[in-house]
């Protein structure tokens, strides 16, 4: 017990005296330039196109913000390529399957769905990303691959935080990372509860915040903000509606 407790305690102080070493792997303060525009363009336009499909936002018309936003504020950053020794290693193994990017000083990589188990395992075992901060998803109903699944990872020894992102189809499952990080258990259950994304090999894949038997996945964009599972409400609460 006490040996266990001591071993990790020696690691974090390394990062601690130099708090500015937030993202040590970013090569010297890269400012937003056009250098990354080739890679970032498809992603940015994909995100902009969905701005029009918010159900309850009549105000923001689908005016392309690109010409309006770019000239007055030259410093509006777009994702730029992220390069580090770790990325170079990944690139040599996985090639075009990963796209490493930096936005506002935060590093993330967009990874092909098929490489996810390998990449997460390597990040945990070889790159010391031992703390799984968060797992979540984002729904883009207009896209063919409707969901972004996002892992936020942190390494105590490197004092570095990264995000791993992948795109999956509606109804497609994804391997569970509970064997890699025990913390993933409830986080994956919440993603399942809110988005209906199944994680293969999860020890207990069921709803966590909503009651079992509830129909629908509330954080999908096609689920209305006032919508409920009225059948469930009527049977279990004995009232006509929860509104």
């Amino acid at each position: 017990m006490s040996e266990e407790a001591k071993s990790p305690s020696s690691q974090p102080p390394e990062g601690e005296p130099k708090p500015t070493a937030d993202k040590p792997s970013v090569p010297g303060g890269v400012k937003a330039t056009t250098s990354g525009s080739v890679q970032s363009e498809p992603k940015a336009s994909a995100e902009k196109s969905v701005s029009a499909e918010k159900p309850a936002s009549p105000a923001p018309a689908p005016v392309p913000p690109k010409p309006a936003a770019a000239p007055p504020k030259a410093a509006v950053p777009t994702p730029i390529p992220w390069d580090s020794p770790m990325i170079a290693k990944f690139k040599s193994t996985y090639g075009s399957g990963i796209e490493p990017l930096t936005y506002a000083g935060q590093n993330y990589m967009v990874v092909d769905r098929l490489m996810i188990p390998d990449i997460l395992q390597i990040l945990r075992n070889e790159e010391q990303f031992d703390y799984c901060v968060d797992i979540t998803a984002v729904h883009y109903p207009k896209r063919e691959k409707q969901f972004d699944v996002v892992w936020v990872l942190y390494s105590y020894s490197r004092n570095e935080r990264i995000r791993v992102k992948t795109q999956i189809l509606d109804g497609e499952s994804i391997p569970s990372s509970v064997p890699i990080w025990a913390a993933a258990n409830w986080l994956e259950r919440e993603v399942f509860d809110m988005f209906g994304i199944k994680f293969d090999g999860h020890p207990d894949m069921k709803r966590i915040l909503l009651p079992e038997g509830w129909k629908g996945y509330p954080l999908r964009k096609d689920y209305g903000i006032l919508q409920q599972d009225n059948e469930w409400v009527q049977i279990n609460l004995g009232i006509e509606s929860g509104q």
Partner: protein
Amino acid sequence: MTDSNTLSHLDLETPEKPFLDANELVINMGPQHPATHGVLRVILRLDGEKVLGLECVIGYLHRGVEKIGEHRTYTMFNPYVDRMDYVAAVSNGLGYCETVEKLLHVEAPPRAQYVRVILTELNRLASHQLWLGTHALDIGAITPLFYTFRDREEILKIYEKYCGARLTTHAFRIGGLQYETYNGFEREVKNFLSFFRPKIDEYEELLTTNRIWVERTKNVGIISAKDCIALGVTGPVLRASGVKWDLRKAQPYANYKNFDFDIPTCQNGDTYDRYLVRMAEMRQSVRIIEQAVEGLPEGPVMAKVPKVMKPPAGEIYHSIEAPKGELGYFIVSDGSTQPYRVRVRPPSFVNLQALDLMCRGQLVADVIAVIGTLDIVLGEVDR
């Protein structure tokens, strides 16, 4: 640490042979149980008095905060975040405002940063006081509750004078503060500090060497540093297991890098150590507030932010050290006035996952102590 990533004693099917040849008993605790600090339901699997395992059933307070966030503008969503961890509302607001500021690429002016630190650290004190009072009450010590609530009142008075609210304060705005501090703010905060410093000693006199307290908390709910990291546990629970990690130092936000303070840690990872760590943290918070009041600069309290906020499309994850652990916000902007996605990474939700591991092999009465020591707020667990 890298070779094995299974938990040290979670992989056992049945942790110990039954002491008596008794049938396994499944009992239900909660959701309306005074010692679960909200509406938490715990299904306990028992062998007599001994806990073999448990399952948490949560979601009773689920209000769909993340969904609401997608249907409100950035400004309108700000008060909602206070309702998650309602005993540390100011911390929630700080995390949210800083995340949106990062999306907007603005920074709050220095004076606002200092006031934010003062109010957030006062909030940490208030949160720890509430934890101490209720935790001690759960274990059977009634007196600390009256002491801590008496002193917490002074913090709430400062909040009330500053922004009119006591609990869900909505103290910060995106870009800084809405209100300049009131006349005599600095004096009152200083007065509070000199009033409060001896009170920490008073709490410690009541508990630290109290025989009953020590017996009820020592070696109860032990969790190792390795298990903490595997389960994503953060905050005082992690530090009591010997990991010297605090986001205020590791990845400083606001202007915490200007202040001199220590990260208290302990080694055993039991309930008593977590108590010691939180007590020491209160003293550190007092130190930080003291420095912040001394160095409070003059100047504006609000940065230039547009009235209609339309952050450029992008994604930001930003987290702060809330009183309970790492509180993160992951916000996706699509360039419109409303967030495309707001994800809240609540410390209580992730920390509560460790309850099963910490309670195995303990007595039923200790489950109460462990729930108390995890310092969860169900409003934040369920969102």
